[in-house]
């Protein structure tokens, strides 16, 4: 594998994992605009654990996910008191606070960032990405996934039908935080250097766009969205500024032609029924 290709694949893997973390929260109807904050928590946990304690890579990755999960569990209780736009802005506030704390802390390297000593190969990122994608598909096929969809579609009715709305929302938020932490850990180990400025509001916005443009109805959405927006710029191969300009136009056009995202439940059913026809002829 050439260096360029493996670099693109690693970024693709990290973006896909990150997209699933936001997707799992979005599947219960909550938009998390603070993804970068949770990713930063994972990345810095991973960096500190492997630099200071010299823990093995698998353990540091697991711990960065656990730590991301614990932090998001703790803040999910106050956050989930808020609704709608307020919730979006509260998650945004958390990402800003995390970045602010890192910038002000000498131990975490402040604005200069820290170098991570341990290193992982592209294969590790890709295998983790595959595991997370499978986990996403499995989760959405279980009763919990059905409950998540019900809460997404109508909170009040889901509550009436006996779904523990709050438990579903808190666990989705926690799982999302844990997966975002894992993606941050992978980022730190793969690139070997992290700085607070990388985990900025743009990263949170982009990952939310991957998920919303991919589609939140099915587990295919984040996979398609993240792949689409990671690979398109590589294919276009033009100046950085034009790239984001075209990205913006794609978003606006996409919202006009496929407002529910690229992959919707209807589209999947149509493709499925054409591949495996049933009914009339059988």
């Amino acid at each position: 594998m050439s260096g360029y290709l493996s670099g693109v694949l690693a970024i693709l893997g990290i973006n896909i994992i990150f997209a699933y973390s936001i997707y799992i929260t979005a599947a219960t109807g909550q938009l998390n605009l603070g993804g970068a904050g949770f990713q930063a928590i994972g990345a810095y946990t991973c960096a500190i654990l492997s630099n200071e304690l010299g823990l093995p890579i698998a353990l540091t990755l697991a711990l960065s996910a656990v730590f991301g999960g614990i932090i998001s569990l703790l803040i999910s209780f106050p956050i989930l008191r808020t609704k709608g736009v307020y919730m979006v802005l509260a998650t945004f506030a958390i990402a800003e606070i995390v970045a602010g704390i890192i910038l002000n802390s000498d131990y975490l390297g402040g604005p200069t960032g820290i170098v991570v000593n341990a290193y992982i190969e592209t294969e590790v990122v890709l295998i983790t990405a595959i595991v997370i994608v499978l986990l996403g598909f499995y989760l959405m096929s279980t009763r919990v996934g059905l409950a998540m969809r019900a809460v997404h579609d109508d909170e009040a009715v889901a509550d009436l039908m006996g779904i523990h709305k709050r438990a579903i929302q808190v666990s989705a938020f926690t799982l999302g935080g844990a997966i975002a932490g894992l993606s941050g850990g992978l980022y730190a180990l793969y690139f070997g250097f992290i700085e607070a400025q990388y985990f900025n509001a743009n990263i949170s916005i982009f990952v939310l766009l991957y998920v919303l443009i991919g589609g939140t109805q099915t587990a295919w959405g984040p996979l398609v969205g993240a792949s689409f927006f990671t690979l398109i710029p590589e294919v276009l191969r033009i100046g950085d500024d034009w790239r984001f300009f075209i990205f913006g136009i794609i978003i606006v056009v996409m919202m006009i032609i496929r407002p529910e995202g690229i992959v919707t439940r209807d589209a999947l059913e149509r493709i499925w029924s054409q591949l495996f026809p049933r009914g009339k002829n059988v």
Partner: protein
Amino acid sequence: MSFEQVLQQIINGLMLGSIYISVAVAFTLTIGILNFLNFTIPALYMLAGMVGWSLSHYGFPFGLTGPINWGLALMIGVICAIFASLLVERFTYRYFKMKHGDATEHAIPLVSSLGFLLIFEYLILVAHGSDTRGFSTSFADLDWRFSGFIISIPQLLSLILSIFIVAGLSLLLNKTKIGRALRAIAENPDASNLMGIEVNKIVPIVFILTGFLCGISAAIFAINYHEVSPYMGDHVGTKAIAAMVIGGLGSVWGAIAGGLIVGLSETLSIYFFGASSAQITVWGLLLILLVFKPTGLFGHNAIGKGKF
């Protein structure tokens, strides 16, 4: 640190807050009336400043004119922001309103406005690069020294101007026919349509006001701080969002209070704890407020609770 120094910081904070006020009012208007978090606002703000700079530095494109007067250039910048805002209305709000009925059920306008944010921002980056540009005006140093305190006159005027604009807006919303139509749309777009309000003609007014408020605010910023940059909208935009949330979504006077609170807490925290602490103070304040009073200081219960 003497008492005078702290007082000077409080004055600076209020002046900085006056920049946030107009942008926060733009945010709060769109969300209060249309239930739509318009993320293009930072880009509109930046557009007015950068177009103003470009005209006063190069003149009209394709060599039509030489550099033009800074005041006129800023006015054209404001007009550009208004037209850009109407473009956003055409392609995000109106389009999806027609197609899907009540747009609040979807995240669509929000996502489209993020798309427009990228389009405007990178269009300017492609045209002018990412450097911060000096903006020279005819008044260089107009500080008013008042028993030891320094008050910049343009800043004082801009604080007064923003409060006047907002008071005028409040009057428009509460006393005129257009204002009544706007409040009806805020209450229920479908019912107001049935009552004979031409929603498609009234809604663009919100976007014209949005462009105007952002443009004016950017012009005030350029005159006060003598610089513009393609990233000027990001900083002001995020702070204005914080101001809007602290004041309560949809409340015009709340946006004023929020803008001043954010400006004050930013300068005071920079003064006491150093430059990079402002982020923690402002957003921490917002988070604590949201936990204890999830609707902000003056917010209405119903606004912003809708699903995306």
